[in-house]
């Protein structure tokens, strides 16, 4: 019963189980029939469901997104995959000008039940064009949902829900999260989109983290615990629509909010969380705010700089500690670099 599997396996299982029960579900994307099966997330599915339902596509992100939308309009439920979120930048027109707007533009007469899977890259010199995390862009636009689960359990349940959802859903993965393991029931289950998850309870600071930063923040919370500091870690899971209530309830209690986004800060998700909190609590001040995320630069390739580009256990813990107990000292030794980063070997 207590089966522990990897996030990538949970994703594969969600697709497999939905394809088995709903023949409208199809799966397309570059390299989907690849021997490596998109980090295992599509392994064996073409063999099982045939080339009509599971197919590789030409290199044509915009056009193929339009194809997926058209198939959705005709009653299929496509899952379109991208090995890097950076390539979605080529498909913005179809995603934003069509998928997100179709239902509204036609007065509700039709919709686009489409899932777009996009993987955020990191490590081994991904560099400028293979490391971007653009969930905030999509959250900015009404009509498309954005999910970014970080546990295998949430990944399976949210992906099943995304496939069943009648709206376009961007399903964001992180390749450093793909290997993370958790308990995942074998039977299919759907988790509601728009519901945050409290990963660990605490009283002194609310830490909202996304994507791979959830893993880093979890470790930071552990370290802080050893110092006697108590952090409540919230994974929003769904970026849009955002479950503000869970965050507000926590901040009400902790009076401190630190957002660690797996992305750039400016005009992004981290700003949204702070803004909502500031509006919600208004003049009822005495709340301290901070956010962390990608450095405000293009992602560098060399490890020497890439290491500084991302928040890590140490500086997350240090920031949180400083907010709770200014002046407290934190030893860097307590916060080794994340194993999924140090152990990662390319060649990609």
């Amino acid at each position, binding site marked *: 019963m207590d089966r522990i599997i990897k996030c990538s396996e949970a994703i594969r299982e969600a697709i497999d189980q939905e394809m088995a029960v709903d023949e409208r579900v199809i799966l397309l994307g570059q390299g989907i029939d690849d021997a490596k099966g998109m980090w295992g997330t599509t392994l064996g599915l073409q063999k099982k469901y045939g080339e009509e339902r599971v197919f590789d596509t030409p290199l044509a992100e915009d056009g193929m997104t*339009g194809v997926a939308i058209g198939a959705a309009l005709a009653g299929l439920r496509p899952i379109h995959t991208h090995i890097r979120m950076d390539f979605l930048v080529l498909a913005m027109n179809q995603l934003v000008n069509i998928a997100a707007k179709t239902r509204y533009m*036609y007065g509700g007469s039709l919709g686009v039940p489409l899932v777009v899977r996009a993987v955020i890259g990191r490590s081994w010199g991904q560099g400028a064009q293979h490391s971007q995390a653009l969930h905030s862009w999509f959250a900015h636009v009404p009509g498309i949902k954005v999910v970014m689960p970080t546990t295998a359990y949430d990944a399976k349940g949210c992906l099943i829900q995304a496939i069943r959802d009648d709206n376009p859903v961007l399903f964001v993965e992180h390749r450093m999260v793909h290997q993370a393991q958790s308990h995942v029931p074998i039977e299919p289950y759907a988790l509601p989109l728009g519901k945050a998850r409290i990963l660990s309870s605490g009283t002194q600071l609310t830490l909202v983290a996304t994507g791979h930063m959830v893993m880093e923040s979890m470790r930071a919370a552990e370290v802080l615990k050893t110092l006697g500091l108590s952090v409540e870690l919230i994974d929003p899971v769904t970026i849009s629509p955002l479950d503000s209530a869970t965050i507000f309830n926590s901040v009400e209690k902790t009076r401190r909010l630190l957002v660690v986004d797996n992305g750039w800060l400016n005009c992004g998700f981290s700003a949204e969380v702070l803004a909502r909190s500031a509006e919600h609590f208004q003049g009822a001040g005495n709340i301290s705010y901070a956010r962390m995320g990608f450095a405000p630069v293009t992602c560098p390739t060399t490890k020497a700089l890439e290491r500084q580009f991302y928040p890590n256990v140490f500086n997350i813990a240090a920031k949180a500690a400083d907010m709770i107990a200014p002046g407290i000292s934190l030893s860097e030794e307590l916060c080794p670099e994340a194993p999924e980063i140090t152990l990662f070997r390319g060649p990609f």
Partner: protein
Amino acid sequence: MHRQNYYREILRIRRVEEEIIRLYPSDKIMSPVHLSIGQEPISVGACMALQPEDVVFGTYRGHALYLAKGGDLRQMMAELFGKVTGCARGKGGSMHLIDLAHGVMGTSAVVGTSIPQAVGYAYALKAQKSKSIVVVFFGEGAMEEGVFYESLQFAALKKVPLIFICENNLYAIHSHSTGRHAQPRHCDRVEAFGIPARRIENNDGEALHDAVTDARNAILKHGAGPFFFEAMTYRWQEHVGPGTDWHLGYREENEISAWKACDPVLKLANELDPDILTRIDAEIQAEIEDAVAFAEGSPFPQVEELYTDVYA
């Protein structure tokens, strides 16, 4: 091809758009209108070769296609008036007409963007072993967008049941096609993807009708497809709006005179019995009056509608 129906359909579109021109100064239609006057034979010829269950995708210049495919006139007029009884509850307007009951799948105001959707829709029809086809209409300007070529590629690769129809009216807004293409034989570019392509001159809806009929048969009987037709035609009015635009100087009035001299309405009318003409005219007039009255009499959407239809 039933010539009387052909005439009737063309005339109906013409009269509807003339009514729009008449109404426009009243500000009842507070949104852009891209008229098809002069181009009617293309939509009509193609759609007369289709069955109700066939599906079409079009562009912001979509009145003719919507009507030719059987779209509801009342709902169209209400949509233009911004009323809640419109085909998109007023949320879409002239640029986003839709009538699912008649296979009008919607139109986009971003040039070229509905082309890949038509391909995907056709892919689904094939996967579903459906006995219908998709036809996608677009201007020659759309053939400059990269997504057009991406769409050709996948359509050809998967042999989808689809007909591409380029309505080549020579202009994209005020730019002549020759200023945008080094090589004006559009069909060559399509054929190079392995898709049979044919150019049909002179606003010839009848030739297009026959070509679409044959293509549709080949698709449904022999699994052929996709096909491409470039239909030469001409827009009489300004790019957007109810007026003419000779004064802007980007095209010459004698260019239009030549096209007007072949006005399909006049040409077909000459062939038909005057009594029939009178009857058709009266029927169309009555239908239009009814539709305008329907639009006039319908309410605007309630303010709460602003927030509906964003998500299912």
